């Protein structure tokens, strides 16, 4: 635990009668990029607020970089950068003024402020409009400025709440690339809240899925996909003359969608039943030339877990 960047154990947080987090636990190691996934209201933002000492848990234990955010909130926030869900920028200021203000808030050394602000504004392609009031910025520009603010004090721990939500595809790609750089080269720890599951699969070493304030899954994307037992689509290639027999056997494991000669397309086969399907074919004397399951996506796993959670 002492080595964990984030440690959450048995945390419960209520707002009146609503339980936002219910016995939540997970950990994040230094240098990891972890995705916190879940529908709106799942408890993602509440978790970030707890980890930064903006809220206190009603039960359980929270540690951020080894510190208790409840008692050492200011010290925790000195080392974290948080991109809030809305950019949270004042329309009446320009980018330079806003960045200088934030630099003062985080105690950036005075002689470093100008160069650091200039670098970040250039990095996020805002230098040309830095003297304009933020009220005239597009959503994407605001998001980029908010990201620049998050990095201003060079924090080792980043919380990014929907980092690419308002960005066009090119800007979103740049942000994903930035997150990779921050984690891989700068060895920063990143917790990303996102609805974009493709992005989460691409960026995250691990994901934690929350549903109605409870942890539904926690692990690497491969582990979560495996745990979800998501049915996959499958292409089987067998001897043409044995296609009918192969079709009969495959039908016991999934829905046969199409047969083209010896090529059989089967939907809805769960990953753990694949070896049995192959064994059944071989036992029946079918010559199997190829078994090509589609790799299930994190999105499919997420939806599957959510549906199972709803049924429970």
């Amino acid at each position, binding site marked *: 635990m002492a080595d964990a960047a984030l440690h959450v154990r048995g945390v419960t947080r209520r707002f009146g009668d609503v339980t936002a987090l219910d016995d939540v636990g997970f950990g994040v190691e230094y240098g990891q990029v972890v995705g916190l996934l879940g529908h709106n209201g799942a408890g993602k933002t509440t978790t970030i607020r707890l980890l930064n000492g903006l809220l206190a848990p009603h039960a359980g234990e929270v540690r951020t970089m080894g510190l208790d955010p409840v008692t050492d909130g200011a010290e925790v926030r000195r080392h974290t950068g948080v991109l809030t869900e809305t950019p949270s920028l004042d*329309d*009446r200021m320009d980018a330079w003024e806003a960045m200088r203000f934030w630099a*003062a*808030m985080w105690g950036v050394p005075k002689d470093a402020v100008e160069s650091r602000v200039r670098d970040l504004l250039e990095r996020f392609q805002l230098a040309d409009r830095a003297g304009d009031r933020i009220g005239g910025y597009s959503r994407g520009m605001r998001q980029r400025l908010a990201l620049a603010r998050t990095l201003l004090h060079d924090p080792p721990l980043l919380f990014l709440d929907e980092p690419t939500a308002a960005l066009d595809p090119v800007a979103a790609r740049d942000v994903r690339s930035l997150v990779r750089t921050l984690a891989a080269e700068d060895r920063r720890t990143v917790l990303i809240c996102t609805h974009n599951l493709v992005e989460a699969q691409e960026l995250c070493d691990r994901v934690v899925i929350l549903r109605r304030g409870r942890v539904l899954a926690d692990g690497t994307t491969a582990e979560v996909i495996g745990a979800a037992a998501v049915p996959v689509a499958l292409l089987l290639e067998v001897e043409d003359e044995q296609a009918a027999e192969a079709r009969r056997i495959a039908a016991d494991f999934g829905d046969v969608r199409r047969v083209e000669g010896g090529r059989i397309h089967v939907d809805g086969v769960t990953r753990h039943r694949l070896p049995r399907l192959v064994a059944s074919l071989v036992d029946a004397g079918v010559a199997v030339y190829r078994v090509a399951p589609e790799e299930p996506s994190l999105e499919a796993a997420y939806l599957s877990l959510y549906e199972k959670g709803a049924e429970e």
Partner: protein
Amino acid sequence: MNWPSIFAIVRRDLTVVARAKAVMIPLVVLPIVLFVGLPLLVSFGLDAAGSELEDLLPLIEALPESIRAHLGDGDLLEQAQAYLLEYQLATFFLIVPLMVCSVIAADSFAGEKERKTLESLLYTPTTDRELYFAKLLGPWVAALVVTLASYGLYLAVCNLVLAGSIGRPVALTPLWFTVVLWLSPGVAALGLSVLVVVSSRVRGFQEAYQAGGVLVLPVVALVAAQFAGLLFVDTAMAVLLGAATWVVALGVMALGFGLFRRERLLERI
């Protein structure tokens, strides 16, 4: 206390306030109405009153000796002008710091929530106490500046435009100095300590501003009581009122320091 952060918040709050027309208009208009329009109206109104001026005689005669002595030996017109400009408007003056506070404090917390800029501020490494103090200090400094500017305006109008109507300098008295430098800052501090709490518990600027408007009522009551002859504020009373105001203000602030939590603000974002 992390003073650089506190000063940064104060500077930022005052900068954004100065750029908001909805906030700045009342801050500019009120002092002009009260301290340019009102003295001119009083002076020229009394001039034009003619025989109706006699209606003020009972009020002048009911004044305490200490005040009457200061009004001089001039005729009723001069005495009435001196009383209204030197005493009556001194209590009116307290509306200025309260007004400035209520507008800026409403913008400072409730306005930040409305503009969705508060959350990023809460994620900074300021403590709750620093945040609370910064949110008090900004409007208080602004109230002080506007109060001094209003006083300067009033001195200019009374002593330049209305020069000679009383025959001596107006509003350069211990009462005015006490009101401007002691009572007004206390009233501002008291108003603010209440308003920051109110402002942190409502969702929008208008709601906070309207709630803050209630604070002006005690000052209006004071002005009315003085007009009705129920109460006369002289220097001694201004000193006492100031002391009482500061004591209550510091008490409410101490309470506010104890009650102020980021968590409560977030619950209302």
